[in-house]
């Protein structure tokens, strides 16, 4: 099953308590960093590790940290993005719920590296039960002298707070998150200035995903060079994958980056194959906003090589024949699923979640939802497919934040790989809207 960095002790009874967590080596990195390393040395280790942002964008974490402005007399902030809302992603919720101290340890070590004395965990409001778990663990950490003034006698001070959102996908975008954390509507900010210069309360701020922060303690304990040996190429380390959809064993799996996709889907160590003895039809490998790939292109690249669970391999072929690792939300479709219906569902999601600030996104997502709805329900027009492609193109790249792209990509990809299925819905609305009807490559077999 490969090396476990984040989940090694996740099944130990009582691991959510400070006592058991410490018994299994917890908080060692705080001790090591605060007592034997300078903040700069911690940043260097993270740079060497090659760790990349686990929230979806995959940006090198050490580099992001090194951009942080450090003007004299101005506070700096570390904000943990626990606003996990990308459809298909549930790894952070699962991890925080089961191993809350791991996040707190990562926050302390990372805050020290960045010179932050107050840090926040912004968690989606729907996860109030996880907020309670985190607050309980934070209280334990304060009582043990791991948070507050003069942590472990090192002279370093840190306050850590958890803040709930209110139900808005957009707040996973880092500048919308900061707006929300300041008690405002989650409208993304124009960049520049970037959060590293003007973030929370107009102060220099780093925003990192839960899983990213949780990887830092291992790197501090074992060195960045050791972390960089795990994984494949520029995809270093391990990744939590949220596996969902029509598989036998949905759940969260920690993998060493580089596991073949075929093994991940069919091995009993992971998804355990397609449920109900059915065939694989397609996979969305990195959360609802990344391109969907049909069976042949998810198992092999266009060049015929095995597709691997890594940043590089999943994006091999660009958006023509590839996709993205994204947040590691691996959504599997069996042969009974309708691609048009699913695409409409996601379009509705993005329309619902658009903050409304930029017209191409606010209007365009609504158009796509409406057009896809009429195709799915048997009222599509011949020119609708081209219309969808055109609307998607006009949203992409024309908005303040990436929600516009996230809405456009799945529509464009579904049409690129499953155009026949859309045409079938338009040409044969009666057949396509019959209960339980699914396209099985019969576009020309049906006589109207």
């Amino acid at each position: 099953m490969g090396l476990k960095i984040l989940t090694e002790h996740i099944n130990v009874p009582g691991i959510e308590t400070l006592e058991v967590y410490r018994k299994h080596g917890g908080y060692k990195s705080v001790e090591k960093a605060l007592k034997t390393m300078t903040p700069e040395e911690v940043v260097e280790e993270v740079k060497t590790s090659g760790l990349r942002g686990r929230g979806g964008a995959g940006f090198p974490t050490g580099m992001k940290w090194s951009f942080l402005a450090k003007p004299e007399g101005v506070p700096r902030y570390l904000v943990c993005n626990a606003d996990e809302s990308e459809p298909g992603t549930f790894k952070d919720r699962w991890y925080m719920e089961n191993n809350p101290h791991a996040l707190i340890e990562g926050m302390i070590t990372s805050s020290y590296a960045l010179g932050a004395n107050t840090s926040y965990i912004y968690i989606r409001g729907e996860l109030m039960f996880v907020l309670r778990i985190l607050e309980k663990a934070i209280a334990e950490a304060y009582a043990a002298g791991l948070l507050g003034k003069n942590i472990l006698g090192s002279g370093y001070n840190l306050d850590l707070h958890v803040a709930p959102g209110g139900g808005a996908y957009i707040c996973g975008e880092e500048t919308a998150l900061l707006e929300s954390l300041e008690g405002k509507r989650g409208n993304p900010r124009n960049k520049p200035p970037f959060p590293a210069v003007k973030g929370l309360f107009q102060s220099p701020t780093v925003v990192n995903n839960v899983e990213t922060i949780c990887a830092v303690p291992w790197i501090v304990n074992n060195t960045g060079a050791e972390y960089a040996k795990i994984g494949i190429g520029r995809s270093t380390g391990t990744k939590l994958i949220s596996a969902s959809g029509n598989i036998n064993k949905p759940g969260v799996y920690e993998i060493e980056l580089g596991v073949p996709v075929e093994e991940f889907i069919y091995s009993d160590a992971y998804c355990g194959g397609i449920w109900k003895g059915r065939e694989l039809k397609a996979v969305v490998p990195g959360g609802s906003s990344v391109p969907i790939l049909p069976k042949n292109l998810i198992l092999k690249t266009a060049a015929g090589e095995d597709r691997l669970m890594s940043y590089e391999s999943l994006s091999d072929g660009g958006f023509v024949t590839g996709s993205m690792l994204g947040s590691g939300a691996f959504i599997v479709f069996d042969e009974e699923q309708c691609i048009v219906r699913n695409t409409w569902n996601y379009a509705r999601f993005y329309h619902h979640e658009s903050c409304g600030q930029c017209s191409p996104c606010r209007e365009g997502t609504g158009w796509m939802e409406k057009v896809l709805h009429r195709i799915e329900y048997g009222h599509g027009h011949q020119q609708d497919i081209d219309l969808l492609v055109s609307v998607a193109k006009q949203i992409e790249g024309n908005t303040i934040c990436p929600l516009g792209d996230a809405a456009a990509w799945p529509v464009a990809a579904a049409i690129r790989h499953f155009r026949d299925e859309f045409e079938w819905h338009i040409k044969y609305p009666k057949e396509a809207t019959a209960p339980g009807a699914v396209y099985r490559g019969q576009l020309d077999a049906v006589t109207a």
Partner: protein
Amino acid sequence: MAEILNEVQFSDAAMAEMQRYISHYPEGRQKSALLPMLHIAQAELGGWVSPEAMDKIAEILNIQPIEVYEVATFYTMFNLKPVGKHVLEVCRTGPCCLRGADELIDTLKRKLNIEEGETSADGMFTLKPVECLASCGTGPMLQVRELFYENLGSEQRVDEFLEMMRHKEHETPTWAK
């Protein structure tokens, strides 16, 4: 003549919890506590936030009421109209649909004899489809207040769930204990 609104009074426990959140932010940034305060108000006031409750929050934070309204209307978790005793927030997004979310919503509509957004005649349940709740591996699922109810893929599971909810009181929030 303008209607005189009844002023809302929060309990001591709720006020203490609100002050705790306010204390997490720097001087002059007390508005940052707005979202948690709306959650606290909603939990205390029967699952929704009235204009009077929002005005009270504005007063506590020393901000304009419009600053509270614009936030409360942006975020989907805040109910701005009265709701049933249990608000069933059913995930309707893609990954749950692959495991039967559309069927779950249809079953609930049929059994409770309501449409989306409506409250059952006995005032017990409000049906509120929502977007992805980060529980895709255990779908179809729904949320009531702070808790998740998962793997509701069969009619039998739905029946058991509804029967249990009919006899269930809400958990007291940690801060009110």
